[in-house]
């Protein structure tokens, strides 16, 4: 027992030494911590890597966890910038002002088409916003695939896949599809990540889920969306998102407390530059014009 404890102590000691050792090497560098949106985590990581190549003195640490986590971290002071796929709410802005002394500042850094995913064997090709609201909305009538389309009737009960309740994707989808005055129907299978939604839909023939279009795989199908039943359905593509024809396209934000200064300012300027926006396009998101 005591022998094990010693080994443990030595292990911890070495670990802390190695950590301080690392810190010492880059003593002159600055670290920017960017936390938040799971939708943006891939693009944020790619920005960080690309930026490190150009500017090795500045290190950007990217953490996921969801827009809610990013915004609460920003308010709690545990990150320098929050990635968010939804807007900060008035209440959150007020809390930020109160806790950090300054208003949060919003930077739109790209756009993302929110795709509606079904299993690849689902015969459905398109869906309207109204139908989505009947499936996902509180009090909505659609419980079975037969209520959506005759072709898909054999799939039985609809398995609704949703997100944790403070995710930016969750909040945006609620606003865009259900409207401001309506809640989600409870009983959806809630996932904690964009990728998890797509993975679960891929494994579940009767599932429907929503997630950023950058997460598409061969195992799932993205539905075309129409604004209302009978209107033409539009596929989620970069062009359709750019032109505004695809109805559920949302801005991706970075929030800072007050106007950014120093390294953070340069980093955001670089993100908005041609080089930064190329990363956005490369990863399947829509660049800022």
């Amino acid at each position, binding site marked *: 027992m005591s022998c094990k404890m010693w080994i443990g102590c030595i292990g911890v000691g070495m670990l802390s030494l190695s950590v301080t050792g690392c810190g010492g090497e880059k003593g002159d560098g600055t670290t920017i911590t960017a936390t938040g949106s799971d939708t943006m985590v891939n693009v944020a990581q790619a920005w960080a890597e690309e930026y490190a190549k150009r500017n090795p003195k500045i290190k950007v640490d990217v953490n996921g*966890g969801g827009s809610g986590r990013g915004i609460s971290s920003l308010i709690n002071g545990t990150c320098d910038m929050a990635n968010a796929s939804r807007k900060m709410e008035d209440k959150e802005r007020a809390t930020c002002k109160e806790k950090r002394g300054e208003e949060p500042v919003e930077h739109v850094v790209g756009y993302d088409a929110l795709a509606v995913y079904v299993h690849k064997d689902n015969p459905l090709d398109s869906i309207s916003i109204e139908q989505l609201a009947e499936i996902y909305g509180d009090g909505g009538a659609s419980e079975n695939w037969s209520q959506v389309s005759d072709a898909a009737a054999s799939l039985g009960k609809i398995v609704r896949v949703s997100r944790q309740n403070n995710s930016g994707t969750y909040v945006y989808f609620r606003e865009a599809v259900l409207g401001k005055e309506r809640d989600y129907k409870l009983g959806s299978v809630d996932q904690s990540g964009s990728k998890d939604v797509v993975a679960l839909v891929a494994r579940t023939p009767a599932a429907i889920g929503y997630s950023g279009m950058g997460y598409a795989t061969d195992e799932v199908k993205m539905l075309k969306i129409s604004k209302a039943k009978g209107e033409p359905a539009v596929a989620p593509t970069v062009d359709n998102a750019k032109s505004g024809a695809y109805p559920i396209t949302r801005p991706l934000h970075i929030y800072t407390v007050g106007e950014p200064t120093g390294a953070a300012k340069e980093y955001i300027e670089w993100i908005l530059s041609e080089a930064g926006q190329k990363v956005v396009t490369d990863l399947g998101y829509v660049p800022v014009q």
Partner: protein
Amino acid sequence: MGIPTTSVAARVRHVWRLSERLREKAIEWAIRICGWSAIFFVLAIFFFVFREAAPMLLGGLDFKEFFTSPNWRPTSQVRPEYGILALLVGSLSLAGVAMAVAVPFGLGAAVFISEFCGGKTKETLKIVIELLAAVPSIVWGFVGLFVLAPLIVEWTGAQVGVNLLNAGIVVALMSVPIIVSIGEDALKAVPDSYREAALSLGASRWEIVYRVLFPAAKNGLLAAVLLGVGRAIGETMAVLMCTGHSINIPHSLLDPIRALTATIATELGDTVEGDEHWQALFTIGVVLFTITFVINLTADLVVKGIRSEKSA
């Protein structure tokens, strides 16, 4: 010549004894502090959880809605609702399913290890079961998600593989080691004279287990089961991965559910310190703490029950 030597020796011995007594005292105090620190930590944890939940618990919380509404909508724009019924039922039904699987297996294994095997088999089994207890929660989660879920879909035709049954089996596997080790201790504590008396009356081995050992060790076995229940209620990571995390009062084994612990795990990081949602999550923490506290206390009292019975 002889006298001074002995007096020096006596003095040395005296000083040495004195220092030994001092050392003894110091060690005694150190150990006492260790013991008290456990109590201190428990109280401190309760204090901090309660302090965060207090603004909601003491004012403003509608207890009737909290315990009887299945609507958990903390981030609603229309009207936030804090009803934990579905989550509570989720956690309890999960513990129920887990125990339905774990108790027969756990007690069976305890009986086998304590009564039916010896030597190498016994040692090997004990080591393997301890290894089972050492598997990290997240690894169990992976087993549920990638091994059990497809099997459940294939065998039962369930729409989703992550559900009450999946999580129940995973949590059962996690509680079995606790049930086995405490159950085995309880069986071992039954004096051999009981077994000998039963044998001399011509009882078969099964009759000894069923008619003699179970009644004699019932308190210990009950405690083993209760601690297993505590484990099932408190488990978080594996539960989050295997239940489907769906706010839903289950009607069948194949329904996805959501547990209290998993709700705290996914939502706490998304909330701003001190706001209503944060307080509601800490209130769930208080509920969980109370449940596990009562279970553990009952288990302790039940075990105490054996001791006093035996000494009487």
